[in-house]
């Protein structure tokens, strides 16, 4: 059995990912530096410094950062509550499955769920208006704009935090707490000196993952935002679907490349922190 024949076994896989993953990636990476006549140019990349694109990137980053931190804090709390239950208990099964759905299924469905809740004729909107006399949209309809995105994104970030942070929480052993106590440490000491430092890399790593998740999200925003393109994914959509910017066909690719760079940096940090965590997790 020669090595060359062995290699044949991975050819179908490599050909497939070559066509549908590597080529698209190269199309974006190379296309960002080409003009409409396929000549090399830096115009697309320098165009990223245009006011509206910079603003879109800033808004995307702020949106991702805010929802990542909110999601991380609340999700970690829920995760901690779950870890205190037995691993095969029904509560834990139900909550983790629900988290899986809400974290990854998201998109259009979540946008609709929020329209049904706090849209103009939503369940909560009508209840607050008719029963308590509170008009949540007194200052304008904010659901279909950036504040609405913060709310809906946080809604899918919390469950994602539970999923990615739970393994680290599971790795915490009760013996460590007992050891702290037998040495005379209080609950505060335990969290400040033992559990806190051990969980910190995993917590920060998970927060980074949440950031990347929000930064890459498209469907929710596409279904929710009706006017304008406040964030980068929506800017890419308008670059793809409209013919307004003649001579700038590859601007969308430059923005896409910008997104990849941001996500890649964040994921590299995440991988580093993940390695630190796995040192004591197993």
């Amino acid at each position, binding site marked *: 059995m020669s090595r060359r024949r*062995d*290699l044949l*076994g*991975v050819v*179908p*896989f490599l050909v*497939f990912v070559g*066509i*549908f*993953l590597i*080529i*698209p*990636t190269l*199309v*974006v990476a190379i296309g960002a530096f080409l003009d409409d006549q396929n000549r090399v140019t830096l115009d697309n990349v320098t165009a990223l410094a245009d006011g509206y694109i910079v603003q879109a990137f800033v808004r995307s980053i702020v949106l991702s950062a805010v929802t990542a931190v909110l999601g991380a804090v*609340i999700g970690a709390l*829920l995760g901690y*509550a*779950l870890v*205190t239950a037995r691993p095969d208990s029904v509560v834990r*099964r139900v909550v983790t*499955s629900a988290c*899986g*759905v*809400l974290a*990854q*299924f*998201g*998109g*259009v*469905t*979540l946008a*609709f*769920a929020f*329209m*049904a*809740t706090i849209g103009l004729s*939503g*369940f909560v909107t009508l209840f607050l208006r008719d029963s308590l006399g509170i008009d949540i949209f007194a200052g304008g309809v904010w659901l279909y704009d950036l504040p609405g995105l913060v709310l809906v994104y946080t*809604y899918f970030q919390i*469950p994602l935090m539970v999923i990615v942070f739970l393994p680290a929480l599971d790795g915490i052993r009760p013996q460590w707490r007992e050891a702290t*106590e037998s040495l005379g440490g209080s609950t505060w000491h335990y969290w400040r000196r033992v559990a806190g430092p051990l969980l910190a890399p995993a917590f920060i790593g998970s927060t980074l993952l949440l950031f*990347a998740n929000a*930064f*890459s999200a*498209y*469907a929710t925003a*596409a*279904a929710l935002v009706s006017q304008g393109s406040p964030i980068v994914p929506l800017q*890419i*959509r308008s670059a*793809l679907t409209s013919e307004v910017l003649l001579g700038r066909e590859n601007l969308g*690719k430059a923005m*896409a*490349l910008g*997104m*990849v760079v941001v*996500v*890649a940096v964040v*994921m590299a940090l995440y991988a580093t922190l993940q390695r630190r965590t796995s040192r004591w997790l197993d």
Partner: protein
Amino acid sequence: MAGLVRRRARRQRVLRWVIVTVLSIVFLLPLVALLEFTTRGPGGTLTWDTWRELFDFQQLSETYPVLWTGMKASFWLVLLSVALTLVLLVPTVVWVRLRLPRLRRLVEFVCLLPLTIPAIVLVVGLAPVYAWVVYFVGGSSLTLTFAYTILALPFAYRAIDTGLSAIDVRTLAEAARSLGAGWATVMWRVVLPNIRSAVLSAAFLTVALVLGEFTIASLLNRDNVQVAINQLGKSSATISFAVSLAALVLAFVLLFLLSFAGGKRRRSRRERTTS
């Protein structure tokens, strides 16, 4: 000490129920709102008409042809994507473990790559590739299978890799080979039955992913259920809200069933390490 532990267990139980209850209410509210919205009749009455309509496929296909097309496309996309993901990934990962351990890092890197490439970026690069796909196999919505298989790679790879780490593939394969089994037999009758729950979880994750996918289908102008409900959302919100809720519940049931398969795997691994 025992009293302290008991007191803490009680305090943790109270804390657990408070947090889980509060967050459950917050998280169920939008879903309850979907249900309330779809059962809202004229003049504040309760009606199940929308739901009756949703499950009467004959009528549904006549009233909402767009939705019906999308649902059918998603149904076939689920089957095709699961099939392609498993056919492509399982033999490759097993083969690499058995015969080409040096390629393991490369395959892992490639499989996890889609995590760093957002779907909205992938679709930008896929557009020209799909021009060729249309040229060779046509413009059917089912061609999305190729893109969905890429999106499913990281999740499916992790599931299968975890499953394979729990068994000693090499020894099993060598034993089967020395008894005269061909590679097909090794794969089908020796390796596969041992990683059944891992394959199952890879399949379930792919199903959930395909059911919820919107970005690529929408920007490549193909049909699936998410594109359809987004289109219908403006004209007939009630039915698209009902489909949304039904899809969420379906995905939840799938993942809940999956949690049992995963649990069995974890338990059996622990037994192995202690024995």
